[in-house]
């Protein structure tokens, strides 16, 4: 009996080993690693994963998507170090926290691995790290653009629902919005957490205790979806002069169509997944790379152009 347990364990181990061997050896082309900062629970990154799959297929390369399961940036630094040790042909990473990731990314650059930074972070930080280029949306400017839109709509007091408060870029978005509006940020940023029920109730509590709030900014589907539900449940959408969200998913585009939400700031994440792989492939094969950084956003999605976007939301938009 005991020996069968032992044998089964060994058999299971060898099956697992065989399965992994086949996944590693079935491609012989360039291998790139894409490291994000997003915890497993962040659904927005699905678009990027789809983009990576497309790029993998179109370029004939392999791409490994990696992320720290809990969103801990210190763990992300370890993953970058691990990726560096595995000698990939190229590395794509977000700059979720410059200080923490600095030595890890510079280690990859020092080893001669071409690095492109995407999404979070600024062009200056990317340059400092020794990356080839940065592909993303300038967070502060995007927030400011939203703030200016809100100001034109007459917003005076706002709520910024921040579902990822440990990411410096999230705070910058709220700060940009406040500056665009021309009011201090103060206590108008809410640390909502990522659990939808929690977000819903925290927003409800905030709006009950701040009844003069007339503008809302959400930083992505994780904070937007519960807010949309709140606005639908209470029928209070007309009370707010401007409701804007970062990023897109099917709930947000439906809300825009229904007039509950005014606009979504689209940073076109598909490009942040697809372009770095395409560019790295060309760089590795032919040594060519654009000389500038690429801004994939901000683009505003409103009632006027929603039809085009809606079909692909959550998958490629």
């Amino acid at each position, binding site marked *: 009996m005991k020996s069968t347990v032992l044998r089964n364990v060994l058999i299971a181990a060898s099956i697992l080993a065989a399965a992994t061997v086949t996944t590693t050896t079935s491609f012989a082309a360039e291998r790139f690693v894409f490291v994000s900062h997003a915890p497993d629970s962040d659904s927005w990154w699905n678009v990027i994963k789809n983009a990576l799959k497309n790029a993998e297929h179109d370029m004939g390369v392999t791409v490994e998507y990696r992320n720290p399961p809990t969103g801990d940036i210190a763990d992300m630094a370890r993953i970058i170090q691990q990726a560096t040790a595995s000698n990939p042909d190229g590395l794509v990473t977000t700059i979720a926290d410059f200080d923490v990731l600095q030595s890890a990314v510079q280690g990859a650059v020092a080893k001669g691995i071409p690095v492109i930074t995407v999404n979070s972070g600024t062009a200056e930080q990317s340059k400092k790290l020794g990356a080839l280029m940065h592909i993303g949306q300038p967070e502060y400017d995007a927030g400011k653009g939203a703030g200016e839109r809100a100001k034109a709509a007459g917003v005076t007091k706002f709520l910024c629902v921040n579902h990822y408060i440990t*990411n410096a870029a999230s*705070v910058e978005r709220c700060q940009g919005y406040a500056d665009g509006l021309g009011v201090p940020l103060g206590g108008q940023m809410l640390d909502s957490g990522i659990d939808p029920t929690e977000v819903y109730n925290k927003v409800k509590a905030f709006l009950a205790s701040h009844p003069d709030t007339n503008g809302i900014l959400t930083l992505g589907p994780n904070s937007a979806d519960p807010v949309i539900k709140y606005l639908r449940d209470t029928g209070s959408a007309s009370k707010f002069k401007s409701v804007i969200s970062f990023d897109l998913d099917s709930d947000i585009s439906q809300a825009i169509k229904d007039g509950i939400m005014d606009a979504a700031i689209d940073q076109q994440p598909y490009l942040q997944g697809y372009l770095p792989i395409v560019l790295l492939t060309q760089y590795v094969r032919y040594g060519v790379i654009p000389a500038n950084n690429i801004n994939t956003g901000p683009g505003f999605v409103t009632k006027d152009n929603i039809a085009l976007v809606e079909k692909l939301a959550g998958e490629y938009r």
Partner: protein
Amino acid sequence: MAEQSHAPAAATPVLDVVDERLTRQSRWRRMLSRPDLGAFAGAVLVFIFFAITAGNTGMFASDGVLNWLTVTAQLMIIGTGAALLMIGGEFDLSVGSMIGFTGMVIAIPTIYFGLPIGLSVVLAFVLAMAIGALNGFIIVRTRLPSFIVTLASLYMLRGLTIALSILFTNRTIVSGLKQYSSGSFVAQLFAAKLFPGFFQWLADNGIINKLPNSQPAVPGIPMLLLWALVIAVIGHIVLTKTRIGNWIFASGGDANAARNVGVPVSAVKISLFMVTAFCATVFSACQVFEFGSAASDRGLLKEFEAIIAAVIGGCLLTGGYGSVIGACLGALIFGVVQMGILFTGAPSDWFQVFLGAMLLIAVLFNSTIRRRVTGER
């Protein structure tokens, strides 16, 4: 351990028979009945697995080895504390939150109140061990399960970390510590790289890889590894060679019986909670000085990793049995599996499934081996 008595029947008294508890077991027999034997076998299995699946991916090159050794060392530090506490019959679920909390205690006073960095570190250790003592005191006094009491501290410490960092700094990542810490003694103590000259020599002689700028791929041994080693060795010696070690086993085995023979059970348990808090603070100090920043989400779920390391290493969840060496091997298994899966290039959506499966296999293998050789049923 349930050994069958071989004492002769009472009817035929033999005067020179030795008490069976004092009979000398053979060295071989003693080695086989160690709690950490299964973990050792598990570690060998894991290394064979990755030698096959990831042998040529750079996992066993110098920088690859450093990568999984670093993760192992981190886990060894908190795993040793968790193992000692678990042998003493209790759990500490507040380890992960303690890591985030103490990181902030080091960073915020230094950057925002101008406290010298050395003092901030001392403050972090003192606060952490005081909270550990409080945890232990509540558990000993109320006889509530440590699972519940430390679960409460898990939430309170995490909440405090977020609330205080927002209150004092209006942000949840406090960075820019490097300019205060560079060159200071504490930064050296927790984040120095040892023997850079030796590694340069290794690289110059082609023993380890060189970077294109002629720096070695591994600049030195991080202090983290030394801390892990020192904590593990001290933990092992205290547990196996001292009276305190016997007290720990006795407190975890049967607290009442231990009290009756004069073991200071309450003091032992409270001290063990202080030890886990100390280990968590060492973990966070190394992390804070390596990265130059503290964040309120650091250490998420680390309490479970510490417990997993101890359990893979043969500690019983019921207390009274286990070893520090086992916990270190458990940390090695977990660290190698965690990073090794990334080297194999397995798709990341499946990462946690693989991780869980590998752990289950390692633990099953480990307990099967142990049962076979100890003849337990």
